[in-house]
């Protein structure tokens, strides 16, 4: 009797579960969009927008770009910042020299220019692998820093070789204040996350993963490895290029070639590792960690009013040491990154949720 009723129940519960699975992401996405485009611009102060939220989102976007290459296609790049700089300088020059183009078109074109450079510097991936490939992408890093420092044309003859946003406007809206810059960054990022989701779940995404997991096997089942690898470089650079433009104009306001140095490339790499490879949102957690932790440590020092008594230099150095220790501990305890930590946390909550409901059902 009970067994029979259970059996009869099963398909119904299955349907409910499926409905829940479809429903939940939609609800989450809606909440996310409302928070991103209504709540944050209304609530957040200039300080939050300009120094915490915007850099986190933009670095997360750069991380997402590199993650497509590293996490999904299994390729290496130590030149993420170079592609960011191409995006930034391309955006600047397009806005300056072709004033008819609206901002969104300029951003897409800048991304495409970065993508073209990505294909060029991805060519060695057809022949070499692993660390050697990493070393060859370093070439991009050094080449573009040199290029933008040595040819004044790229910075329109600026005395200090810096570029600054000529006009940040869309359909007559001035986007140069903090809220405007935030909305620009958030809208671009939301669209690019959508694009990344579509790519990863398409045939291209599955083929990347096949190449990443076993390239010989991938070749045997008919995947054109060379093309897919170059496409991975192109798409990754497209994302990084747009992230670079946002970094320069949405966040910094002005930038020069040195804003995109090797340190920045490493930062993007760490964001991917700390956030978790082959996840779309992991990069944003990684970026939040990299951007927030140093500020947080500084705030803790400020809150404890240690500054009055202790040596300021020692405190500043101590903060860096603690930051390093946290990274090491995190990578030992959670080698799959923050996104895996979060997933386990959420599934734990869900399990407790079902466990607490069990007696009632």
């Amino acid at each position: 009797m009970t067994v029979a009723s259970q059996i009869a129940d099963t398909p119904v519960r299955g349907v409910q579960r499926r409905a829940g699975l479809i429903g939940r992401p939609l609800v989450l996405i809606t909440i996310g969009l409302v928070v991103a485009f209504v709540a944050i611009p209304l609530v957040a102060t200039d300080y939050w927008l300009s120094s915490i939220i915007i850099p986190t989102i933009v670095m997360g976007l750069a991380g997402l770009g590199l993650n497509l290459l590293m996490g999904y296609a299994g390729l290496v790049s130590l030149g993420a910042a170079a592609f960011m700089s191409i995006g930034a300088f391309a955006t600047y020059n397009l806005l300056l020299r072709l004033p008819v183009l609206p901002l969104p078109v300029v951003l897409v074109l800048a991304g495409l220019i970065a993508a073209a450079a990505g294909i060029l510097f991805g060519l060695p991936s057809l022949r070499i692998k692993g660390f050697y490939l990493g070393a060859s992408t370093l070439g991009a890093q050094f080449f573009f820093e040199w290029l933008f420092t040595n040819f004044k044309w790229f910075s329109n003859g600026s005395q200090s070789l810096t570029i600054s946003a000529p006009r940040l406007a869309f359909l007559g809206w001035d986007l140069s204040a903090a809220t405007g810059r935030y909305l620009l960054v958030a809208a671009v990022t939301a669209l690019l996350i959508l694009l990344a989701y579509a790519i990863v779940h398409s045939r291209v995404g599955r083929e990347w993963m096949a190449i990443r997991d076993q390239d010989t096997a991938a070749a045997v089942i008919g995947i054109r490895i060379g093309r897919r690898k170059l496409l991975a470089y192109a798409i990754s650079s497209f994302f990084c290029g747009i992230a670079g433009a946002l970094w320069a104009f949405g966040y910094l306001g002005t930038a020069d070639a040195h804003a995109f140095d090797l340190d920045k490339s490493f930062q993007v790499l760490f964001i991917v590792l700390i956030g978790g490879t082959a996840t779309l949102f992991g990069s944003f957690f990684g970026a939040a960690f990299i951007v927030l932790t140093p500020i947080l440590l500084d705030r803790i020092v400020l809150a404890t009013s240690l500054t009055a008594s202790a040596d300021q230099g020692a405190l500043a150095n101590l903060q860096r040491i603690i930051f390093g220790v946290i990274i090491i501990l995190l990578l030992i305890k959670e080698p799959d990154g923050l996104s895996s930590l979060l997933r386990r946390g959420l599934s734990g909550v869900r399990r407790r949720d079902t466990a607490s409901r069990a007696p009632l059902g």
Partner: protein
Amino acid sequence: MPSLSVPTIILAGALGLVALTGSQPASAQEHKGEQLYPLFTYRTGPYAPSFIPFGAGNRDYLRYINEVEGGVDGVKIFIQECETGYTIERGIECYERYKNGYDGALTAAIYPHSSGLDVALTDKARIDKIPIVSPGGGQNIATDGRVFPYQYPLIFDYWSEAQIVVDYIAHQVGGTDKLKGVKIATLYHDSGYGRDTIEPLDILSKKFGFEDIQIPVPHPGEQQQAQWQQIRQAGADWVFLRGWGVMTPVAIKTAARVGFPVNHIIGDIWSGSEDDARPAGGVAKGYLAVSVFPPGTDYDILKKLKETIIDTGKSDLKDDTKFGTVYYNYGVIEAITFVEALRTGHRKFGNHPLTAAEGQWALENLAIDDQRIAALGAKGLISPLQTSIANHKGETIAAKIIQWDGTRWDTLTDWIKADTTLFADVIRAKAAAYAQEKGLVLRTASN
């Protein structure tokens, strides 16, 4: 469920800390009635060795003003440090943190202590209406306060420096008319900073007829054999060394190796500290440098600092031998510009903490003349500084030439003044081009 609790605790902790990060203690008013001085520091990172004495000079002078003189016209200065590590990202965070004051204390001006950060803050400061002051390290085009109402590149710029160097060389060869045929090589750090003197030297070489040789050194400049061979082959008579960091001592050493006379090398202001010359060892003896921040302890104000701050153990210096070095005195000079701006503002607005708008007025109405310099006890330490809406740098730009004697710097000349009219039009044209590119409306005295 241990697998649940650990991540949950971490997440909860992270959220709690995020909340702490954003909490602005602006509601507390413990420092009401005080003037905030947000001290942007870089006590960590590659440039920490130059910041440490600089920051100490800054803090010591402000401490002297607070404790010995009882504040600026009775208004106490409240120092809040913010570590940037010389990165632009952290600097922007510091700027956002302190631009609207802190704990009741008002912000009148922000000294970013980094040329890169100064540039990055240009647009933000324009929107927020916060004065950004960079003595000795600002953007030259921002001299035009009609285009840059909130940037103050006080005291010095590299175009004037090029003029002063050429002027000094002219004196050595027997007058400007003897410059014809003299070969002056500029060895520069290959960056925006280093390339800044290419244009003025080109103009000067056409004017005076000397031969202008420009040679770049890629960052960081640990290898300069090729460049110095080139200088020898070109038969250069003088070298203007626009270095930064390790590039300077390497240049002095390499010059000795190829046999270039060290007393014909003139360092830039950022190549002219004790830490630039000392690492080069004995071969640096006789090396020259341009100095806007003259080293030494033989100034009245330095003597007062020694007596009231250093000797009483209140100094921020850990190593007292740094007292009176180039960077320490630079810190003192910068703090003087801040305190004098406050005094200027007090005369107009009354003796209370200044707002950013009042700070802006004060900074473009600075008038530190010889009489005031004598009253400050800073004769020989600073040269007169007078600003206006049309000139945010100062009317007279001057520097001294100093010489390394193997252990310390000797002052070789008095203030050499740059002819500010020479480049004024070029700089103005650049500012106008900037205004056009950004679509800015020029400010006039009335608006």
